[in-house]
């Protein structure tokens, strides 16, 4: 059990909770977060040093609204870290493509990479862009409403960069699944390896209960990060997911259900 050390309000709907705790962690891993009496949900770690770590919460449903209302000293339970994390290789130049709060799991990755990194970061509005001043690397922004950077999608920016002759050895991405799917397709077309970070409804978090299956993989243990080779064979990617009852539904139905809980 840990107590909230600090809370940073990122914007009207996002807050980051810091914990003073040495967490053995690889970028891309996640923890199961228990608010006693409420529920327990998976969150990727969005900030990490040897002595502290943080999670960034977007207030959407019952649990997340409770989570962003936590204050310094409040008690939460942590299980993990779980998951495989990003595969960081000896690449020369990489792109990190973040959609909305997909920036959260990618942030510790950006801070770990010691190579030429370009961050392509999109959100609904300027206000929703997380950590605007955090990184020292090249960053391209886009917003749905044009309030910051390019008016449009991260995939457009990625394609522009590739068309302009920019070379990437690897693209890391996280965000809405349909966005990650299109990033993956662009990478496939241009023969660029790609790693995405998926999410599914979870219970155990460590690969036994099967709640988070995606094809023959369990997202909590085989993932949440999946590379191009696995994605090419994963028919449920951007296609199907299981609800809490275990019922198999289309991905859009899954996400509209999930964002309410």
């Amino acid at each position, binding site marked *: 059990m840990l107590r909230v050390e600090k809370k940073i309000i990122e914007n009207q709907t996002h807050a980051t909770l810091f914990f003073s705790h040495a967490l053995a962690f690889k970028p891309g891993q996640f923890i199961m977060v228990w608010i006693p009496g409420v529920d327990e949900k998976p969150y990727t770690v969005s900030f990490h040093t040897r002595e502290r770590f943080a999670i960034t919460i977007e207030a959407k449903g019952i649990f997340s609204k409770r989570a962003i209302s936590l204050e310094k000293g409040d008690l939460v339970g942590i299980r993990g870290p779980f998951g495989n994390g990003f595969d960081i290789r000896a690449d020369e130049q990489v792109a990190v493509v973040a959609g909305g709060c997909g920036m959260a799991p990618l942030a510790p990755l950006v801070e770990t990479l010691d190579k030429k990194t370009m961050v392509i970061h999109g959100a609904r509005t300027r206000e929703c862009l997380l950590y605007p001043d955090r990184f020292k690397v090249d960053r391209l922004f886009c917003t749905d409403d044009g309030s910051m950077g390019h008016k449009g999608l991260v995939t457009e920016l990625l394609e522009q960069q590739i068309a302009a002759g920019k070379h990437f050895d690897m693209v890391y991405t996280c965000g809405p699944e349909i966005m990650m799917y299109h990033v993956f397709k662009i990478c496939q077309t241009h023969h660029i390896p790609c790693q995405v970070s998926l999410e599914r409804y979870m219970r155990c978090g460590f690969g036994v209960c099967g709640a988070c*299956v995606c*094809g023959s993989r369990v997202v909590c243990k085989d993932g949440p990060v999946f590379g191009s080779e696995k994605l090419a064979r994963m028919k*449920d990617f951007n296609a199907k997911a299981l609800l809490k009852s275990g019922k198999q539904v289309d991905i859009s139905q899954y996400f509209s259900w999930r964002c309410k809980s």
Partner: protein
Amino acid sequence: MTIRFLGKILKNPMVLASGILGNSFDILERVHENGCGLVTMKSIGPEPRDGHKNPTVIDLGHGMINAVGLPSPGYLNMEAEWNDLENRDFPLIASVYGGSVREYQMVAEFVSSKSPDFIEINISCPNSEQHGMIFGVNPQSAHDVVSAVKKVIKVPLIVKLTPQALDIGEVARACEDAGADAICAINTVGPGMVIDIESKMPVLAFKKGGLSGPMIKPVAIRCVFDIYKAVKIPIIGLGGITTGKDAIEIIMAGATLVGIGSAVQYRGIDVFQKVAVEMDVWLKDHDLCMEEIIGAAHREG
């Protein structure tokens, strides 16, 4: 290690426990490919059920506690899953549960029409107030469920029992009398509880939950031993099995097949393959074969 079980040839005696991984065709196939002779689906219920809020599963190191709570799409809402499973090339157990004798019968009859190789009735899950375990704690209600289901299904019937029964041998005998073809023992032990002393609250959302994994193996061994004394039908022995030696032990208690669940966490999804190999090595080292050791603990001394 091929073995014959209720008319089916299995590539080995390993069984995937219900509730571990078995949520989709793809994952069931993957478990089979990882050395599991017979896979069991997640329990199917009479209506859509979400199960409990989280936390639902906690790894305690020497085993687990869970109160997942029988989530199910509901037996009428699984057409996509049955379509996928139709062309499977592996043997399959479909597990069913209900909140009344009539519900068990209704679900089992429908599921039987989808042609699983076996049906397992779950009268042992402790994580619902109205389903599962309450039917398996005494011989009479177990008998009622089994005989109602036996009337309406076209595939062999396995009954999964709870260690909470006062006399599990007697419950098993009642199931055999009612027409069960095999017994699976045991489901989780307890229920137990874990309280977090910082928040002063039980950790599981349902507060209580079933125990599984290495810490319950002695209970499983004793239950299988008692059941073997009471019935002639074959037993799937399950509860805390992690290694080949554990498997040999539960076979000597009286099991014909060996189930694994929690050990997926401790040894990986290929635990089935690992345990099958370890059993084989032990048998060869001791110059024994499977048939000789089933129930051997009853014959020694």
